[in-house]
């Protein structure tokens, strides 16, 4: 499969995460002068998003990300987002984190499926990045980093052929295969069926560069058109007006990847009655495969540069709930079907000299906020993930 898929997967999922967090933080925010110490204000919200964006676009992190490599496993990727979500003062319980990840992945799956042309995945990515730039708060350095990433995306992907983009798309679709979690905002908009499958419209604009179906043209041996016939089908297509822009700034035209959440539309996911396709999904989670060493090493390298922060409030302060009440969150945690649990793995830090010289170097260069936990003296080469929070 394609070795260039990870940056697109990571950036788009990150973008969706920010949309959801923004919506939830707005829903739970209190005007600054009225807020107690542990309640969210508007400024808090902006800072949280800012911190997450700063971490997402950390230079070393991105350098690793853009190296040609296989996609991470679902578990490994989930751990990355766990860490990312906790890169600010915000805290999420397991149930809320699970819900956040479900929403992020189903949203991006939808976007990949509905992309008219394989290369439109790039437009979806650009839509996410355009929105991310709007979330940045009083930080020209981070804005710069995002623009740099934009340029790197353009450099890496703009020249790829349709065939290569289709391979990337297929790699992503395989990653999302058999995921049918129902999302209430999708169900309401009739974009998803009650069995969890997305609605694929057979009307609307055809992809840019595609002809409207219906015409058959026949040519003689000299290449002159001699006959023309038409056929009709149930589809009802139109020609699109213009192509989306692949430049740093421009009208992307495509709506996929833009923010579909708003404060007044709380987003729920439905666990009950999940489809029978869970069988294959279940197999993946039950097989005990704590992240392969290779993945761990890469993951740790990626996150080795994270500069994490301590929560200013107590344990319960600055916690974000993805559900409408604490009771709901508690209930969701208890009733989540076994097959859908992500089984996030907690990794202990060791002080064993790392076999990878690069990692030691990166760790050594950084200022660590927390003292590292003592050595576990394990034979396994489990590498430190920075926060012991």
């Amino acid at each position, binding site marked *: 499969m394609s*070795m260039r898929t990870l940056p697109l997967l990571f950036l788009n999922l990150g973008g969706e995460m920010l949309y959801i967090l923004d919506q939830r933080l707005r829903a739970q925010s209190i005007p600054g002068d009225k807020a107690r110490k542990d309640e969210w204000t508007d400024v808090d919200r902006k800072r949280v998003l800012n911190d997450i964006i700063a971490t997402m676009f950390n230079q070393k992190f991105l350098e690793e990300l853009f190296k040609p490599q296989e996609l991470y496993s679902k578990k490994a990727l989930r751990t990355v987002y766990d860490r990312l979500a906790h890169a600010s003062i915000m805290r999420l319980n397991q149930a809320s984190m699970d819900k956040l990840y479900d929403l992020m992945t189903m949203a991006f799956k939808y976007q990949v499926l509905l992309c008219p042309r394989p290369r439109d995945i790039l437009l979806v990515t650009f839509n996410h990045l355009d929105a991310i730039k709007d979330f940045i708060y009083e930080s020209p350095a981070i804005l710069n980093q995002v623009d740099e990433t934009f340029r790197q995306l353009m450099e890496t992907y703009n020249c790829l*052929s349709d065939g290569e983009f289709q391979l990337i798309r297929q790699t992503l679709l395989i990653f999302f295969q058999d995921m049918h979690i129902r999302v209430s905002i999708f169900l309401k908009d009739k974009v998803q069926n009650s069995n969890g499958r997305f609605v694929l419209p*057979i009307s609307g604009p*055809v992809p840019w560069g*595609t002809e409207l179906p219906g015409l*058959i*043209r026949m040519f*003689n041996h000299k290449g002159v058109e001699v006959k023309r016939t038409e056929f009709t089908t149930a589809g009802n297509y139109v020609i699109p007006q213009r192509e989306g822009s692949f430049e740093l700034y421009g009208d992307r035209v495509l709506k996929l990847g833009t923010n579909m959440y708003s404060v007044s539309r709380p987003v729920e996911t439905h666990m009950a009655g999940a489809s029978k396709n869970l069988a294959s999904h279940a197999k993946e989670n039950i097989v005990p495969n704590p992240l392969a060493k290779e993945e761990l090493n890469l993951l740790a390298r990626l996150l080795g540069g994270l500069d994490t922060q301590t929560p200013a409030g107590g344990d319960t302060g600055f916690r974000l709930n993805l559900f409408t009440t604490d009771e709901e969150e508690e209930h969701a945690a208890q009733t989540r079907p076994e097959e859908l649990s992500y089984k996030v793995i907690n990794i202990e830090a060791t002080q064993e000299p790392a076999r990878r010289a690069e990692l030691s170097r990166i760790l050594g260069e950084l200022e660590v906020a927390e003292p590292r936990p003592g050595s576990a003296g394990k034979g396994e080469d489990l590498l430190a993930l920075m926060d012991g929070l």
Partner: protein
Amino acid sequence: QAAWCELPARVLLVLTSQRGVQMYEADGSTLVFWHALDVPEQPTAHSVFARGISAAGGRFVCVGTSSGAVLVFDVPLKGTNVILSEVLEQHREPVTDIAAEQGQAPDGAGDLVTADDSGTLCLWRTGEEFTLLGKIPGYGCTCSSVALWNGIVAAGCGDGQIRLWEAGTGQLRAQVSAHARWIYALDLAPLTGKLLSGAEDSFVHVWKLSRNPDTDDVEVQHCHAECVTDTQVCGARFCDPAGDTFAVTGYDLSEILCY
């Protein structure tokens, strides 16, 4: 990918992957042969995989690769002594599909067609040594699947078009605006000239190919359309040589639908 390769003496089940090519006996019981692709130590930006499978010339199995090379395997009447007899290096882009002549090739028309990501088609005469008879340049659009019948090359493309070429001359003979999205599968029923196309737009179409006996022009007729609701069709095949029944598969679908 998986494909049955029907040779006069035996039928092999051929599988392609990122690692290489595997060939099994028709009942899946024995691994007859295994060819590993060169996988680099460090991943590079270019993926490595095998794609495109066809039996050819009554004796060979041809498999395409991501480098553009087409591997030609000489298959013995029985046993496991399969040999890589030739590597055809005419494609610059990853190979997408390979098809052998399923009817009667007119003189000079060749009996094998190979296609790649750029839409370029190569026409070959099979034999001890394969001969390149012609090259049809791409239209700037990936040709995802091909079929060859009575000297007519049918190419399903990423832009939803089906293009029909004269294999002998490389002349474009028909163009069908068949689908609104990427065509994934093409299949041909050799007894009747029916052509099946399946695409991401959820549609499966059945067409009829024929030759006008007076003008020798290629004619295409639309026979039937089927919409597989909310499914991106990934595979479509006739279940019999006359094309009276066909089967369809799609993304996220654990079922095979038969029509």
